[in-house]
């Protein structure tokens, strides 16, 4: 009974497919042209790099581990810091602010170096074996999580503050405690709002894990660099490296997009 709507829907789908084809064709064209230009100076030896993929896969696992732990720590600590910054107690607020302003204003590269070469060594008793203190994955993920928590906390804070204060009042008026109101009313609404910026930050975290090569953690970027030292195939190695990062970050974007869509099915107003 609604041919117009059906036709309208089909038309949108067709348009989407056409756009995808166009973009792919255009992008592909540019890439091929660029490749031809480079090929005049450089001989691509893709055949030689394929059997290095196992090394990349090992690097991938470490990148995933470092990013995963970093995300977990960043999100949990970020939420705690955000709640501190919104606390009615001035002392908590100040401590939260101190954390955010310190961590956010140190270059992340320097913070990683400081954690691994500074803190881990300083914690070591005089004359003791390096042992556990040399666990690069531990210190790397810790550094990643700690400084990302400062950014993530700001995302949480903005999200929570964007929920009208009257939602908290209504919850408290029905006898909910502050924490119950946060858990059942404020945070679920805030999570919807922060999904897009949070995705951006988590993708940034994955990309920043590449910095961990400075502490010789054998993650993806370190692997590509190391292989490049052994064989003069940098272009090929770094192309593969970029593809590996895309393989991590694009799915995160897609999941975020799906989540957003799911939230919006029933809730049109944010």
């Amino acid at each position, binding site marked *: 009974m609604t041919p117009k709507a059906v036709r309208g829907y089909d038309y949108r789908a067709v348009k989407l497919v056409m756009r995808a084809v166009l973009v792919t064709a255009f992008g592909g064209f540019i890439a091929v042209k660029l490749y031809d230009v480079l090929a005049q100076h450089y001989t691509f030896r893709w055949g030689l790099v394929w059997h290095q993929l196992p090394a990349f896969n090992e690097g991938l696992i470490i990148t995933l581990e470092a990013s995963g732990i970093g995300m977990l720590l960043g999100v949990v600590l970020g939420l705690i810091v955000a709640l501190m910054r919104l606390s009615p107690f001035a002392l908590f607020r100040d401590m939260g602010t101190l954390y955010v302003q310190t961590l956010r204003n140190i270059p992340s590269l320097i913070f990683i170096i400081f954690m691994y070469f500074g803190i881990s060594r300083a914690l070591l008793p005089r004359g003791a074996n390096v042992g556990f203190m040399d666990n690069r994955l531990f210190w790397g993920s810790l550094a990643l999580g700690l400084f990302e928590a400062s950014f993530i906390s700001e995302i949480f804070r903005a999200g929570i503050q964007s929920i009208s204060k*009257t*939602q908290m009042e209504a919850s408290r008026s*029905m*006898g909910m405690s502050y924490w119950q109101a946060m858990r059942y009313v404020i945070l679920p609404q805030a999570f919807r709002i922060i999904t897009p910026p949070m995705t951006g930050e988590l993708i940034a975290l994955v990309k920043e894990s590449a910095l961990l090569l400075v502490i010789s953690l054998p993650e993806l970027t370190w692997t590509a660099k190391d292989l490049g030292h052994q064989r003069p195939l940098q272009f090929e190695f770094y192309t593969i490296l970029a593809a590996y990062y895309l393989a991590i970050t694009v799915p995160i974007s897609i999941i975020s997009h799906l989540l957003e869509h799911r939230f919006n099915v029933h809730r049109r*107003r944010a």
Partner: protein
Amino acid sequence: MITIQDVHKWFGKLHVLKGIDLKVTEGEVLVLIGASGSGKSTLLRCINGLERVQQGQVSVAGIDIQTSKTNLNRARQQIGIVFQQFNLFLHMTVLKNIMISPLKVKKVAQQEAKETALKLLQRIGIPEKANVYPDQLSGGQQQRVAIARALAMQPQVMLFDEPTSALDPEMIKEVLDLMRELAEENMTMVVVTHEMGFAREVADRIAFMDDGVIVELGKPQQFFENPQHKRTQQFIQRVLQA
């Protein structure tokens, strides 16, 4: 049921409540009237502890609301409040809005909470909206859900803070009718409103507030036909002209 004694409230330097004394007995409907800024909403919010007073006492059902020793979360279970802007939880269905507090605060069983909620929806006349989200309801329907949500906690007292002020004229009646029913069931109610018809018809007593004090308190008939205080006389005159 509600006793308010010598309550003073300051917002910074602004003295908004200047010594309020008021008693509301069980089953009574008290309507608070007054110009904007006269302190009536603030007074209402002091009754469930959303506002803290700097001086004086408020007690509801024998519980002292304004001392720090009181467990406000528990006290508030006895006091339902309905806001001007409904304040429904936008991420929950109508049913969930009504169930959430009985479930999480009173720890009622899921099945029981659901049955109560469905009964309340039946009562407010929109059982078919159980699984709809608040933004798909009209303002009048949202406010009725807000009332149902408050009733789900089985409070002893219901507070209404200008419940019809944010509604389109054609939806005001459905909300007032529901409140009228509550009054007939002997619910103790304190209602801040500009609906003079409702006040005249439903109120047991009317309190007129001006500049942080209750200047007149009495039965509706006396209040409308024979107001004693000068401010009340001016107010009534203006309202009746409009």
